[in-house]
């Protein structure tokens, strides 16, 4: 993975000093809260319902075991002993004191981490496929390009006061695990017919109150133009993105109102001036960054095949976990392991300091010290020998991290909701917990198969409900919580926005409604080979409406 050089260390140290000075001036009254807000946000500090929240960047979701130990230490020392992994592959701490934040940032800097641009109207942490560098289906590791973008966008003088936040995601596989089509810019690394490396560039995807699927802006941008082309997009957006209404300020609205062809022409015109300039990436620089991401030396461990088969025969629980949370690696003797942060009845994405330390230790013992954070709020060990899966599983089990539900109905994404968030209208976490408890039975979950439930506590959609196979949106109606259900959303290479199925449900009726939807699916599907999303796309909303509301609403709809 990337390692800081002297320049990076000096930069982050200066950034900590800069923010420390800003905090001091705020506490002295030299900066008003209004003016301080964008400054603290640009460094990941939010004011929540009960306390400040600090969001720490995990660039493209890649962590070393040493960094994970530091995150555990921070949770223990400055927070209440846990942290929350987010849908943008970051981690947030919900209870730090403002006066402790400079010290936390200094500790993070020791392990090459920071909170730069994890919030605010600037270019945010660049996210990537959590299986990058290990997946068999990728063209190349996309993370070197994410790292180049991370560096280039850090404290960018022209693009730090954008109309709104700006999120870039990158994948290198046809099978999109990074949800690139619901990002402001989505990049798909590819090779053209001549064997050159470049990107398909998507623009204007996003969720929030106006969900939109990104449009293809450029089918193939040669890699050396990455920074000049993104600069052209950013400049057009900075100058022309709407600033009169924060809910219409994202680039998706500019794309929608301008039209993709017109916007493409503007970007192209701007890029003509930039493409031959100093932002052009030399091959040597791409190669130098790429060399940091060289995979670990994976020696052949063919003995693992027989061992794994034997373990699976003797231990049904282990076998279930392998079937669910273990995916093939590009090296046949290795696997990619998903560590679920979705225990039955738990809080999605939360990990205790002890769990973080345990994951770090297991990563050192079995996974070359490398850890990933997924946008589905789980962790991944990307390089584990088949021969090590059983001892790894025992280690995870000792910490309650062996939940075998990756991709299943209890692998729920949920935003913090009204339990923490100042923006929320309704609770998300208790909703996730109740659904998880209802579907706790492992056999029943397997029978249902792949089903993604995503829950947001307000229209800002941090819980990605628009792209949930089943999406749940908490709203407030007449002072009470009400939950709207959408069906048919998806955030992969076939991205779609879910459709509202009908009137909302009170909290006490919601889980029953989810069960009705699941039972309807089970009755409608052609068989286990037809997952929920395929079935929904085939049969449409009608049977689900009928089951939920009876005949009257079907006719009305």
């Amino acid at each position, binding site marked *: 993975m990337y390692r800081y*050089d002297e*320049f990076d260390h*000096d*930069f982050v140290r*200066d*950034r900590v000093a*800069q923010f420390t*000075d*800003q905090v001091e*001036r705020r506490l002295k009254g*030299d*900066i008003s809260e*209004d*003016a301080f807000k*964008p*400054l603290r946000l640009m460094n990941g500090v939010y004011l929540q319902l009960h306390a400040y929240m600090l969001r720490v960047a995990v660039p493209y979701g890649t962590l070393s075991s040493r960094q994970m130990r530091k995150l555990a230490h921070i949770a223990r020392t400055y927070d209440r002993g846990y942290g929350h992994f987010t849908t943008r592959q970051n981690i947030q701490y919900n209870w730090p004191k403002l006066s402790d934040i400079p010290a936390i940032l200094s500790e993070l800097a020791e392990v090459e981490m920071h909170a730069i641009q994890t919030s605010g*109207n600037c270019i945010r942490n660049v996210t990537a496929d959590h299986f990058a560098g290990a997946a068999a289906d990728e063209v190349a590791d996309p993370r070197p390009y994410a790292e*180049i973008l991370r*560096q*280039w*966008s*850090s*404290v*960018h*003088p*022209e*693009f*730090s*006061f*954008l109309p709104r936040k700006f999120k870039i995601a990158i994948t290198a596989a046809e099978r999109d695990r990074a949800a690139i089509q619901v990002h402001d810019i989505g990049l798909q690394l590819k090779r053209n017919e001549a064997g050159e490396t470049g990107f398909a560039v998507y623009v204007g995807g996003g969720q929030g109150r106006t969900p939109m699927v990104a449009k293809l802006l450029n089918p193939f941008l040669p890699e050396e133009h990455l*920074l000049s082309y993104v600069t052209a997009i950013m*400049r057009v957006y*900075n*100058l022309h993105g709407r*600033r009169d209404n924060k809910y219409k300020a994202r680039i998706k609205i500019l794309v929608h109102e301008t039209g993709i062809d017109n916007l493409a022409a503007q970007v192209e015109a701007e890029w003509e*001036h930039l493409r031959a300039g*100093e*932002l*052009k*990436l*030399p091959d040597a*620089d791409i190669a*130098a*960054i790429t060399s940091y991401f060289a995979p670990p030396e994976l020696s052949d461990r063919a003995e693992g095949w027989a061992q794994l088969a034997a373990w699976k025969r003797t231990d049904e629980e282990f076998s279930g976990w392998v079937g669910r949370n273990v995916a093939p690696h590009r090296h046949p003797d290795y696997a990619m392991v998903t560590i679920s942060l979705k225990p039955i009845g738990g809080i999605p994405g939360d990990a205790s300091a002890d769990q973080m330390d345990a994951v770090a230790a297991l990563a050192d013992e079995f996974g070359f010290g490398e850890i990933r954070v997924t946008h589905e709020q789980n962790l991944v060990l990307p390089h584990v020998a088949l021969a090590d899966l059983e001892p790894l599983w025992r280690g995870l089990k000792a910490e309650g991290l062996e939940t075998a539900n990756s991709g299943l109905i209890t692998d729920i994404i949920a935003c913090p909701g009204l339990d923490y968030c100042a923006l929320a209208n309704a609770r998300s976490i208790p909703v996730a917990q109740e659904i998880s408890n209802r579907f706790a039975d492992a056999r029943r979950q397997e029978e249902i198969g792949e089903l993604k439930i995503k829950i947001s506590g307000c229209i800002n959609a941090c819980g990605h409900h628009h792209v949930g196979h089943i999406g749940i949106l908490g709203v407030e109606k007449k002072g009470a919580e009400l939950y709207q259900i959408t069906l048919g959303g998806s955030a992969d290479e076939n991205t779609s926005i879910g459709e509202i199925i009908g009137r909302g449900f009170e909290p006490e009726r919601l889980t029953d409604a989810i069960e009705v939807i699941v039972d309807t699916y089970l009755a409608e599907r052609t068989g286990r080979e037809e997952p929920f999303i395929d079935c929904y796309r085939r049969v449409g909303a009608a049977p689900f409406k009928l089951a939920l509301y009876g005949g009257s609403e079907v006719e009305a709809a």
Partner: protein
Amino acid sequence: MTRIWTTSGFLDNDPWDLSTDGSGEGARVLSLDEALELAAGSNEPIAVRIEPADDVTRLAPVVDRVVFVAVNFPAFSDGRAFSHASLLRDRLGYTGEIRAIGGVLLDQVPFMLRVGIDSVATSHGPTIERLAENNLPGIKLHYQPAAAESSPVAGYSWRRRSAP
């Protein structure tokens, strides 16, 4: 009271009238439309004020005659003038003064300097104090080229270092 700070210190005798109606003292700074109209009908030097929604590249044909540009930051959160200044320097090759006006606050100044703004008008007391001490909260290391003078850094093409 509004003070004008430039990279070489505070300016006591500001030659420019930045009022929109010419009611102030000094040479009048025109709106972009007024400036282009003047340029079409005369050979006078041009002092122009760029509002956030303006297209600054319209100055390209007459940029040789532009002697002063004010770029407006009407709100802390409105960053359009950062692009205006970048375009003036990088695209139009303008070398004269670019002044940030509006509600300029200390923490914007390092960003402004990097995109080529070289003077600011501010009435914010704590900002004026820090400018007087020449104690700017900026970072000398940069991950991207920008209009202001900086030197390349060994390693990667996109990195820069400001003069100390």
